Every structure is written in structure tokens, then in C-alpha cells.
């Protein structure tokens, strides 16, 4: 595993350099925006990566809460299966299709719904017990980094295109900012709370926080917003060459996010090992102190 990381790092660096070359040189210039539109190749992949990481955090938090109560674990498992099966079938029924916003493909919704049971079982299989909590904090922290990039590159793009840095009251922008604030508060809770219930509270907060992700994504369809329509899943139109570069860029950022998550995961495991060692030391220390403070008459012979 130690050898694998440098190899993957080199491959990811080459991939990122290639994605940069594609974004700056190969992708055609936009007829309306000119070259500044190329911010899309960092802005959108960062947003998708952040959503994916928050989704992983959501699933890991549900798994973690369920694992603390074995009786609810089976129930949650069946609920997830039902959501997956019913959700996918429902997406292709005409009454439900009428509820799907115009321009959004039912297959895109079905794929998203199907990801819930898929991620649930994969995460449950490879991250048993407290590792779920480690995965949750890892994905939240790296997700916040990517969401920060979205919030920084968005205004930099908006300034030359819209003429303003930020559109106050715009639902897409505001809900993204709220999403970022929720996950920052999640990380603050984990950082500064010493309660035994911190992990449970953080998992509950993560579940409610993740509810903002669909609001951010669907806000474009349900509300009037200055933000452009999405480039995949229907609703928007994009030159296939641009879309190709966008997907290459996203793949490169996904590889990068994977490596960062890997290291953050290892860091969290090391941190917990050290905390456990300190706790053990203090227990042993207090045991010695307690023995020393025993009255002579009651001291063990």
C-alpha cells in the first residue's frame, strides 16, 4: 500500500496536467463568454466532487447511526433497498415523470436513486464499525475543501460574465453557501466537542445537512435563478468537445480527491490510535494513583 500511493500520485499529477492542457488548449473558445468560460473546467468538477463526498458522508452517517442499534440496522437496510427499487421503477411511470422538472431526464434521476443502495452496501461492506465514522469525517472535510473552491471560483467567473461578484438572494448561490456552512459547522462540532455523543450528533447533523444537496442541485429547475442550467442530466446544452473536456477534468479531480481522502483517512486513524493510547495511559496512571491513595488498612495484602 505504501508503494501504491506514490505511483497513484504520479498518475494523478499527469492526469491533472493533461486535464489542464485539455481545458486551456484543446477545448474550443465559447462564442459568448470567450476564454473566461474555461473556469467551468474547475468550477463544475469541484461542485460534483463536493456533492459526491457529501453523499458519501450522508451514507456513512446513516450506516454509523444504524450500526449503533442492531435492531434498526435490518430495518434501515430494507428501507434502502425499497428506496432503490421503488425509486428506479417510479422514475419511468408517467404520473411520476410529470413531476420531474422539464429538461431533466428520468434516467438521470433513476441513476441517482440507484446510487443510494449501491453506496450503502459498498460502504457498509468495506468500512465496518467505527471506520464508518472515520469515513464520514474524511468525506466531509475534503468535501468542504471542494465546496470552498466552488464558492471562490463561482464569483470570479460571475464578475466578468454577470458584472457582479454575487447575486444576493439567488437560490443556487445561497443554498450552496448554506451547504458549506452546514458542513463547516459539522467539522467544528467534531473539532470542539468532547462529549461521548459527538459522533452520534455529528452523524445526525450530517444527515440533515445532506438534505441541502438536492436543494442545491434542483434549485435551477424549481426557482428563477441567474445561474446557468446544468450541463448534464438534461436542461442545458453544451458542445460535445467541451463536455468531453469537462468529464476528463472531473475524472482527474476525482482521482485527486481519492488520494486526498485516502491520506485524510489514514490521518484520522492515526489520530484515534494516539487518543486511545493517551486514554489508556491516563487510565493506568489513575489506577496507580488510586492504589497509592488507598488507606493502609484497606490496601490489598
Amino acid at each position, binding site marked *: 500500500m505504501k508503494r501504491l500511493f506514490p505511483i497513484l500520485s504520479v498518475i494523478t499529477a499527469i492526469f491533472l496536467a493533461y486535464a*489542464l492542457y485539455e481545458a486551456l488548449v484543446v477545448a474550443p473558445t465559447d462564442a459568448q*463568454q*470567450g*476564454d*473566461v468560460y*474555461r*473556469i467551468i473546467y*474547475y*468550477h463544475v468538477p*469541484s461542485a460534483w466532487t463536493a456533492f459526491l463526498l457529501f453523499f458519501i458522508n450522508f451514507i456513512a452517517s446513516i450506516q454509523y447511526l444504524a450500526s449503533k442499534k442492531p435492531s434498526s440496522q435490518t430495518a434501515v437496510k430494507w428501507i434502502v433497498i425499497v428506496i432503490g427499487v421503488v425509486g428506479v421503477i417510479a422514475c419511468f411511470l408517467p404520473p411520476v415523470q410529470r413531476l420531474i422538472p422539464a429538461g431533466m431526464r428520468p434516467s438521470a434521476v433513476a441513476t441517482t436513486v440507484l446510487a443510494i443502495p449501491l453506496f450503502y452496501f459498498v460502504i457498509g461492506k468495506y468500512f465496518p464499525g467505527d471506520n464508518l465514522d472515520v469515513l464520514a469525517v474524511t468525506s466531509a472535510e475534503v468535501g468542504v*475543501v471542494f465546496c*470552498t*473552491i466552488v464558492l*471562490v*471560483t463561482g464569483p*470570479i*467567473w460571475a*464578475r*466578468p460574465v454577470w458584472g457582479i461578484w454575487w447575486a444576493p438572494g439567488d437560490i443556487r448561490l445561497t443554498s450552496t453557501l448554506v451547504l458549506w456552512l452546514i458542513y463547516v459547522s459539522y467539522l467544528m462540532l467534531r473539532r470542539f466537542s468532547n462529549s461521548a455523543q459527538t459522533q452520534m450528533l455529528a452523524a445526525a447533523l450530517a444527515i440533515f445537512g445532506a438534505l441541502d444537496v438536492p436543494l442545491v442541485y434542483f434549485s435551477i429547475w424549481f426557482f428563477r435563478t441567474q445561474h446557468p442550467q446544468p450541463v448534464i442530466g438534461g436542461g442545458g446544452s453544451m458542445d460535445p468537445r467541451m463536455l468531453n473536456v469537462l468529464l476528463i477534468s472531473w475524472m482527474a479531480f476525482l482521482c*485527486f480527491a481519492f488520494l*486526498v481522502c485516502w*491520506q*485524510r483517512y489514514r*490521518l484520522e486513524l*492515526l*489520530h484515534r*490510535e*494516539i487518543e486511545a*493510547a*493517551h486514554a489508556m*495511559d491516563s487510565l493506568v496512571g489513575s489506577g496507580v494513583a488510586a492504589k497509592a491513595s488507598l488507606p493502609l488498612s484497606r490496601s490489598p495484602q
Partner: protein
Amino acid sequence: MNAVKFLIAAYVATWLIHGIYIGTLVRRFSRLRRESKDIGKQK
């Protein structure tokens, strides 16, 4: 030309944020490794 400045700013900002985050990870790793060694020595 002015718009290209925004493009460069966005790309630089992205890698700056990633760089700062990776820097904090490296710092935390070295601190924890040091602590881990100290615990090993105490034992």
C-alpha cells in the same frame, strides 16, 4: 484580455486552496507521528 485575468485567478485560487489543505494535512501528520514516537519511547 481582462477576462483572462479572472480565468488565471480562478485556476490559481483552486490550487492555492488545495495546496493550503495538503499543507495542513502534512503538518498534522508530522505532529501525530512525533506524538506516536513519544508514546512508543514512554512504553
